[in-house]
């Protein structure tokens, strides 16, 4: 019984992760054969996947809807920018930058790691008070964090260029350089979920009172989840800078928040597969809409060009999903390559002390 239980546990642990990883790699490989335009879309999607998976690590496991993750992304983007842009360019754009940052010149990977670390530190500071809140208060609090970070990034002109853009970032991000980060995020998100930390937080998500009675220090678990999730959002911010070559504060505010929350909600808030599914579906949907936006030539007639249609369609989609399928496309379940009966069966109940039945 022990052996079969061990095998069962191992497969339950490994298979969904493998499945997601393989699907993602397959999609990327397929896209690799398409023209550069599509590749750019895929890179953008991978970066958003990083943000969504990062957000999921906190939101999905804790049940707290946080609006603040894009602020981690923004912080990561600027930290990476400080470290990766050449000192000469920085001299021109941000003449008042402190010497330490002015002289810094690191590789994109190192800068991305630093971005993640910086975001995590910030998340720790913000998380210590934020994790005490629950439900709607926590959501509002996280929104406040987003707004404060945006206000600071938009106005601290000496450090961030204020409302203007920072340029000079290396164009380092393509589908092959971003994929490893995405896979790493998936692996860590899954490991966290399966670990005792993830389990404790999920219990607290379902019932705070029962979790506390079972010995779960809810505050601590939330802080841990927030710090881990911020890391990937920070890295995503760095990669986003590498992708665009330019960063500006308003990219890390409401629009990005909306897109990433939509992806998470549409896919399914409470499962990692949902996060991935959401990114894929919304990206595809967005692409279709964008082409419609440009105007389509459908043989006998043409659909006129309509800017704003993409966003409109996405918002409508989100509303529809919320009304008709509030748990998202995956309904909160993880991808299961094996038939459901395998998951339900489990080791046989043998060798049980009968006298207590």
């Amino acid at each position: 019984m022990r052996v079969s239980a061990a095998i069962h546990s191992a497969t339950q642990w490994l298979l969904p992760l493998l499945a997601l990883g393989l699907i993602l790699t397959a999609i990327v490989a397929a896209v690799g054969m398409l023209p550069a335009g599509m590749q750019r879309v895929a890179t953008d999607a991978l970066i958003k996947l990083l943000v969504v998976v990062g957000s999921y690590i906190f939101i999905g496991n804790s049940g707290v809807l946080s609006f603040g993750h894009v602020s981690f992304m923004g912080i990561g983007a600027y930290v990476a920018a400080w470290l990766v842009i050449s000192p000469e360019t920085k001299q021109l754009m941000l003449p008042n930058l402190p010497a330490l940052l002015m002289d810094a010149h690191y590789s994109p990977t190192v800068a991305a790691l630093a971005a993640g670390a910086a975001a995590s530190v910030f998340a720790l500071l913000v998380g210590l008070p934020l994790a005490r809140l629950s439900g709607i208060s926590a959501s509002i609090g996280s929104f406040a964090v987003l707004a404060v970070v945006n206000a600071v990034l938009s106005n601290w002109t000496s450090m961030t260029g204020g409302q203007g853009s920072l340029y000079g970032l290396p164009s380092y991000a393509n589908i092959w350089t971003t994929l490893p980060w995405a896979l790493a995020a998936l692996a860590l998100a899954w490991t966290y979920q399966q670990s005792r930390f993830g389990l404790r937080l999920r219990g607290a998500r379902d019932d705070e009172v029962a979790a506390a009675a079972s010995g779960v220090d809810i505050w601590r678990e939330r802080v841990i989840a927030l710090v881990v999730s911020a890391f990937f959002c920070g890295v995503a911010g760095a990669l986003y800078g590498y992708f665009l070559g330019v960063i500006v504060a308003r990219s890390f505010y409401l629009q990005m928040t909306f897109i990433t929350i939509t992806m998470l909600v549409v896919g399914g808030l409470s499962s990692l597969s949902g996060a991935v599914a959401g990114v894929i579906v919304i990206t595809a949907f967005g692409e279709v809409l964008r082409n419609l936006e440009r105007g389509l030539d459908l043989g006998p007639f043409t659909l006129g060009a309509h800017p704003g249609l993409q966003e409109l369609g996405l918002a409508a989609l989100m509303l529809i999903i919320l009304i008709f399928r509030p748990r998202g496309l995956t309904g909160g379940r993880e991808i299961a390559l094996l038939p459901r009966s395998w998951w339900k069966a489990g080791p046989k109940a043998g060798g049980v002390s009968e006298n207590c039945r």
Partner: protein
Amino acid sequence: MADPIDNGDTPGNVLAARQVNVRFEGLLALDQVSLTLQPTQILGLIGPNGAGKTTLVNVMTGFQAPNEGRVALNGQEINGWPAFRIGRRGLARTFQGVRLFRDLTVLENAELAAVGMGLSRAAARERAWETLDLLGLTGKALQRAADLPYGDERRVGIARALAARPKYLLLDEPAAGMSEEEAAQLAATVTEIRRKFGCGILVIEHNMALIMELCDRIQVLEQGRSIAVGTPAEIARDPDVRRAYLGADHGLTPAPRVRSAGKEAEAAAAKAPILAVHELKVSYGAVAALRGVSLRVEEGELVSVVGPNGAGKSTLMHAIAGVVTPDAGDIALAGHSIAALAPEQRVRQGIALVPEGRHVFATLTVGENLLIGGVTRRRDPGARAATERILEYFPILRERYGQPAGRLSGGEQQQLAIARALLSRPRLLLLDEPSLGLAVRIIDEVYEILSRLNRDGISVLVVEQSIARALAAAERTYVLRNGIVELEGGSNELFGDSAFDSAYFGFARTPAQPQ
């Protein structure tokens, strides 16, 4: 019988609460209550609704801060400790509302408790399997907790608490909703748990048979005070305990109602009952609250519904009022089905509910509350006159007309709630536990009013926790237990009937108490 434990000394190896006071907004929920639980001991904690049993458990487990008093676990004072710290120290509990982690599997529910104690996931899983084994749940281990049938939910709750391998285990109504066989199995399981793990176990229960059989000692709470502690035999003989449960100390006798004989009576009998509930089934998710309840109220009757906690009484009222949608069954008002109507439409049909806890609009004035009550009739000619008439029943409300309703006393709020319901000119008045939290004298007044209203032609259905009160006021009484009607009859017949004791307390195998 006084509490003999209270020597102020806290010996090392026990779970002890000492002179705990808890106050909720002026109400004294616990009054100098002390309790001691020893390892390998099974202690029963019983008492009528609102006695403070769950509050006491909440204090011991860190969910309720006491105003005064101390709690110690194996010599360590745990006052003011957060609940999770207490959990980690070896005190585990179940909940009245079960509170499973709905999206997690049964196995994960148990694992979580083990993980909460600091075990690794693998070790926790091992222990979870063992624990599920003990409770016969291995077959359901991989099912989502939300999909479980009612009977299994409570066992999973126990498994979860047990997976923490606690030193002390507090079970809050573990047998609620269980059949006789299930309750017997539970008793065997609890005994086995004690034998295997040596933990001290506290059991809050209403099922007397279970308590008597299972426990080494029993402590009785009533209205926040500990009124008796002793062996089951001692408690069974204690007159205070019986009085506490049946509340029959007001010199009340059943009200013999003389139904008018002859043609009038025949005509009345031929009419449809003002309320007919047929095979009503209501469930909240997987929890079956009502499992096929049928009852009726004839026009002009005053009928009561009694039953232990968790029997489904409030659910019944909510279903009749339209707040809760039943899964099956029908509700008919004077012969017409109202099952499809929204609550506000049912009011217009002639049903008014005075909800449990009164629910007056605290920031609105008394006058405005009454306005709301009369909202369905505000365009009626003579609406003002109707309001005047109602105020005759409740002169105190006229005095307090302009005050915010939140400032009224409990009894006054109850009167306001009834007046508010009356203003919709109902044919049937529903009341959910009108005596809750009120002093005896006030309850007398309230029932005075109810009797007057009934005499003036309003049919009344009242849910009561005080059985004597219910029997004294109503012509007929239904005893609800586990979501079905166990017993029904005229008050005369029921009063003093041992079958009644059976139905209410769940005696099945032990002989009835000596009168």
